[in-house]
């Protein structure tokens, strides 16, 4: 949910331009997993700011709590214990919406205005327009949107669009005690990441790098990874996420063309009827049977 906005780049299921006179700076959140200590303060801050409360869960024998994203938990820390050439490593990743430049959720959504993308890059759900079909879940390459059992609407990280709109940083960024999460212009965040990567390489992480997958046009939530060559190690972060050919086919040019095809069937039928006339019983058979 967000403020009435004049800087909408894209709106789901909308074929005409959205209000977009105002151009805002492209922003990004950079998550440096190498600085993360797994304290979950970001999870708490997220719930605090957004006023969501998840059900109290149970211990699953791992640090992950809750175990997965839910309609109330828009971000969760995921902990992976991985054997690498450096020995046992504990890789912790803050999971949540990546705010793709080319958002699969927005593309898949059939409800006008239920998903919007602002010119600052934030992809937001407007739940009052959501019809609960879950197409966004099928469209998302990162498995992020969650359908609420309570109201059959989908929820996910808003990148604190309400805070960002008034010049504040997202709640998770504000609270992070180690500075692992930073926020600013996308350009600055990429520059900052580059500095971090140089530092990590000097410390022996030869494959350190930025996770900004180009298959979805880049993202507005990026990671600094110590093993950027193997993102899957971080609890299944996809190596080369894309919206996928099925979604492109489903939401591309095929449907307008098919609609045109249906209209042509109607026109063709009319033309046939008018030019060829109806298919009636012939006079000779009428006479023959009447006898």
């Amino acid at each position, binding site marked *: 949910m967000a403020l009435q906005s004049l800087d909408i780049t894209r709106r789901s299921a909308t074929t005409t331009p959205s209000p977009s006179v105002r151009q805002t700076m492209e922003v990004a959140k950079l998550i440096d997993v190498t600085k993360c200590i797994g304290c979950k303060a970001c999870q708490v801050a997220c719930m605090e700011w957004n006023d969501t409360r998840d059900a109290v869960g149970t211990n699953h024998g791992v640090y992950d709590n809750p175990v997965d994203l839910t309609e109330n938990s828009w971000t969760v820390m995921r902990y992976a214990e991985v054997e690498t050439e450096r020995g046992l490593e504990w890789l912790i990743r803050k999971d949540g919406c990546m705010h793709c430049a080319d958002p699969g959720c927005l593309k898949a959504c059939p*409800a006008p205005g239920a998903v919007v993308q602002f010119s600052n890059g934030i992809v937001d759900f407007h739940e009052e327009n959501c019809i609960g079909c879950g197409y966004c879940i099928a469209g998302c390459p990162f498995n992020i949107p969650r359908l609420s059992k309570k109201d059959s609407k989908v929820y996910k990280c808003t990148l604190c669009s309400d805070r960002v709109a008034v010049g504040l940083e997202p709640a998770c960024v504000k609270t992070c005690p180690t500075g692992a999460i930073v926020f600013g212009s996308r350009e600055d965040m990429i520059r900052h990441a580059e500095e971090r990567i140089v530092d990590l390489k000097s410390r022996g992480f030869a494959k350190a790098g930025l996770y900004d997958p180009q298959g979805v046009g880049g993202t507005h939530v990026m990671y600094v990874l110590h093993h950027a060559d193997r993102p899957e190690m971080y609890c299944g972060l996809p190596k080369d996420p894309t919206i996928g050919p099925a979604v492109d086919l489903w939401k591309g040019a095929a449907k307008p063309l098919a609609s045109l095809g249906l209209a042509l069937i109607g026109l063709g039928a009319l033309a046939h009827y008018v030019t060829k006339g109806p298919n009636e019983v012939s006079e000779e058979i009428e006479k023959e049977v009447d006898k």
Partner: protein
Amino acid sequence: MKTDPDKLPRFTAPERLNHWLVAVLFFLLALSGLVFFHPFFYPLNQLFGGGTWARILHPFFGVLMIFLFGGMFLRFRKLSVMTPADREWLKHARELASGDTRNLPEAGKLNGGQKLMFWSLVTCMVLLVVSGLIIWRAYLSFLFPVTLVRVGAVVHAAAGVIMVALILGHIYLAIWTKESIGAMLYGKVRRAWAKHHHPAWYREITGGDK
């Protein structure tokens, strides 16, 4: 309705009732399905009480369709078995469309085109039901991997369009072939109609060779 002892019985009352229930349900499904097909059709959701209601109702209409179309399938599957004569009939369908019936082989109770329509509809319906269950987010989608759900969405949309196209054709052919709508509404046809459109069937039920 006039009773005419000379008329020939073509469709029984249960067949007709089944057909029209399927027809009504088809319109409910097509109109509510188009809501999700393209933004252009989204306003159709108002016929069902809004987008959320269209989303809720569409799959339940579909479940009902499984039973009603299943009934049509059981009633007409034997009648719709394709014979070599039907294939020959289909080769002359273009001539028939131009009003030329000179070389048209004699059709039985159903002609080759009607049989082809039947099997096309059955194929689309199977695809729609299977893919529809896979993309039913409220109850079933969580059982399937996301790739399958994506493919299901494409198959559902494609089969849906083909289904609508087939039914548009079916409706037009019924309008074009005079008195055939009456046959499905009231169950009986004039002898001349039967002889003209379905000569082999006419001979079979009148027992004569005239």
